[in-house]
């Protein structure tokens, strides 16, 4: 936009009429300023209830196409967008064409929505859903302790409904399954024997009861049911 004060692009000839530097107008301190404010998450702050979103821990389930590179895409997305991820598990479903990825994240509400929406944008991702707090969640740990107090190790394993996978004169390896809290507690309990190594799987989960974990499976189930057997065994057959 050309300046109309000087007559469309024409130069002024009087050097005194020329501002020494740059543009003119009220200085920053002299301008009207709005009163409001937004939070770091871009939400307008209501002065009455000055609430910000606290991070919460939640599980997101994604049904994905079973093809090479999917895991790299998902983990790449998570890392480049700096989502705070606690665990990521993946495994095939009974439909050989699909896998289920379960992500446990710790994010405030807007972050959780972003994870869902960004995941949905990935081409191999079929369907995404955040699981409710009542979802059935499980994690497995395999841990190896020193073998010099086998009876006591066995007692703790029993206490946590675990199983002994391998027992030798020097080491005992057990597995424990359960929710995250139980796994944490079990690991604590085994510490007294000296844990040599352990491997945790991270959480995997399904929605509870009648609820579908992701919509795509519900659709597929209904479709299979109407097409063939009135009572298919699983949605993924």
């Amino acid at each position, binding site marked *: *936009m050309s300046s109309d004060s000087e007559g469309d692009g024409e130069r002024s000839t009087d050097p005194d009429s020329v501002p020494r530097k*740059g*543009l003119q107008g009220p200085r920053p301190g002299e301008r009207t*300023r709005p009163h409001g404010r937004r939070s770091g998450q871009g939400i307008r702050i209501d002065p009455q209830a000055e609430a910000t979103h606290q991070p919460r821990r939640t599980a997101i389930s994604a049904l994905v196409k079973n093809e090479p590179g999917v895991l790299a*895409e998902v983990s790449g997305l998570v890392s480049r967008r700096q989502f705070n991820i606690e665990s990521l598990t993946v495994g095939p479903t009974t439909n050989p064409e699909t896998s289920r990825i379960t992500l446990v994240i710790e994010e405030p509400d807007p972050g959780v*929505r972003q994870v869902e*929406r960004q995941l949905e944008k990935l081409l191999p991702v079929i369907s995404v859903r955040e699981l409710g707090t009542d979802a059935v969640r499980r994690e497995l740990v395999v841990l190896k302790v020193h073998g010099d107090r086998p009876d006591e190790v066995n007692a703790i394993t029993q206490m946590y409904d675990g199983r002994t996978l391998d027992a030798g004169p020097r080491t005992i390896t057990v597995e424990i399954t359960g929710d995250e809290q139980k796994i944490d507690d079990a690991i604590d309990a085994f510490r007294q024997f000296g844990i040599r190594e352990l491997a945790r799987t991270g959480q995997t989960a399904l929605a509870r009861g009648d609820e579908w974990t992701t919509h795509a499976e519900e659709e597929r189930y209904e479709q299979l049911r109407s097409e063939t057997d009135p009572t298919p065994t699983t949605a993924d057959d």
Partner: protein
Amino acid sequence: MSERASATRPDADADAEDGASTSGDDRGEQHPTDSEETARTASGRPVTTGAQAVVAALEAAGARHVFGVQGGAIMPVYDALYDADLTHVTMAHEQGASHAADAYGQVTGEPGVCMATSGPGATNLVTGIADANMDSDPLIALTGQVPTDFVGNDAFQETDTIGVTRPITKANYFASESTTVGDTVGEAFALAGAGRPGPTLVDLPKDVTNAETDRGPEEGALPEYYEVPEGANESAVEAAATALARAEKPLILSGGGVTKGDASEQLRAFAIDHGIPVVTTMPGIGTFPEDHDLSLSWAGMHGTGYANMAISHTDCLLAVGTRFDDRLTGGIETFAPDAAVIHVDIDAAEISKNVHADYPLIGDAGTILDQLAETMPAAFEAVGTGSDSYEEWREQCASWKEEYPMDYATPDDQPVKPQFVVEALDELTPDDTIVTSGVGQHQMWASQYWTFRHPRTWISSHGLGTMGYGLPAAIGAKMAAPDRDVVCFDGDGSFLMTLQELSVAVREDLDVTVVVLNNEAIGMVRQWQDAFFDERRMASMYGWMPDFAQLAEAFGARGFTLREYDDVADTLQAAIDYDGPSVVDAHIDPDENVYPMVPSGGDNSQFALSEDQL
């Protein structure tokens, strides 16, 4: 197009070729085609190789130009181009190819196509792909790859192109079968332009393109599960319309998505019918005519003072097709702090990513603007207002225009001001001239002092801010719109990054005018150093610069030098009149800085008008 590479597809890397032909042929046999008719290319020849299927897919999708550079792994595809109904433009550097294709895509609205060989060819495309990704430009990259059996073995000229480009593409594909490679390219094409546009890439192993197949591409279909939302749901539209009707200080923020969605007409009509002032984002420049009363030009770090005042004071922001980049918003805490935000976007992931949307409307910009327009009368009635109630606000916006006019000092005894050059060229060229630019101060002056009136006339690197974008973009733009004037404002630093593409402009005889706003510095950095680093000008001043006019002549273009105010109009006119590429080396005031400026992360209402306000 250069001469035939070879009739029999012999190959320099014989080892690679061996592996290729065996596995390739096997593949061909494993997938016998059904009895259906043999696929044919647009020129009517039967498809006999994977490479021809690739080219047939490009033809079928309507591609007319391909920008690229030859090389070992992509040779089969080039060979197939020999007989194709496509114009190949050989660029000097693959980065040039990707920028040219990107600009081509922006001007036409259809995906631009670039092509490169494996390894260094592919990595040279990367900057342009990343640029297209940030700006949601429709682009297709086809890259050669070493034969499938060699992949992963650090073979000659191998790069994990899929891995490298995954974070900067909308989708990328490793083509593993000659029988499906045509479909893959068709899908990549469809996807690049669908919904929110973006770059897609197909990596083409040499054995796959060399292998025999008679399967041509199917109709370029979108992938399974890919849904493009249309309009928004009625109740959401009603709620948004009511918020607008209730507002006293509504403002439209028009982003690049309005251009991509071809919704500029709807946006203009909506703003003018309801009397709502409009600011654009920088990529949204041209979506609303900047000479209209309601236009406040563009907002953000170097946007106008009045646009930033309006953004800061609005109570209802109708944001269309914008991702609320930080160069626009400044600090989020102070962005449009009193505004209810209505956010129209085709990409659900943009909703509340940076700025919380009180009224999200997910879908096509034009469709939703139509829906809003239909709903407004009822909304005004329900709320008991009308667009008259925005009158005071319109006056307020007009008074900000008076308070903070875009202006600059032009004393006689100083070197030429860059803003003056921009305004002068604007006056000498038609309204629909396409302007491209590099990145830096010159980019800001071009966007501030040129009056844009039409969408797809401002072609620049926004999100990535890629120096060197301007010249190859001008080449792509001129190829896309041969009947329009194309000018490029470049910085001396930006021009140095890709000026080898002048050779292409000369070879292809493209009538483009490059104006180098030469301050013998990488000026934008120098400006920041002066403001924020105690004037310690580390690595931002050039001790010596080539003579750009002579350089242009060496390339076979016309060169001009500009140093005096009195020569500006004549020199620019001569450059425009020259029927071919010309370069104007415009020596400008080396101390001129870009204002207004909102320091990064700052409050938009606190823009500085000069250094002492920073």
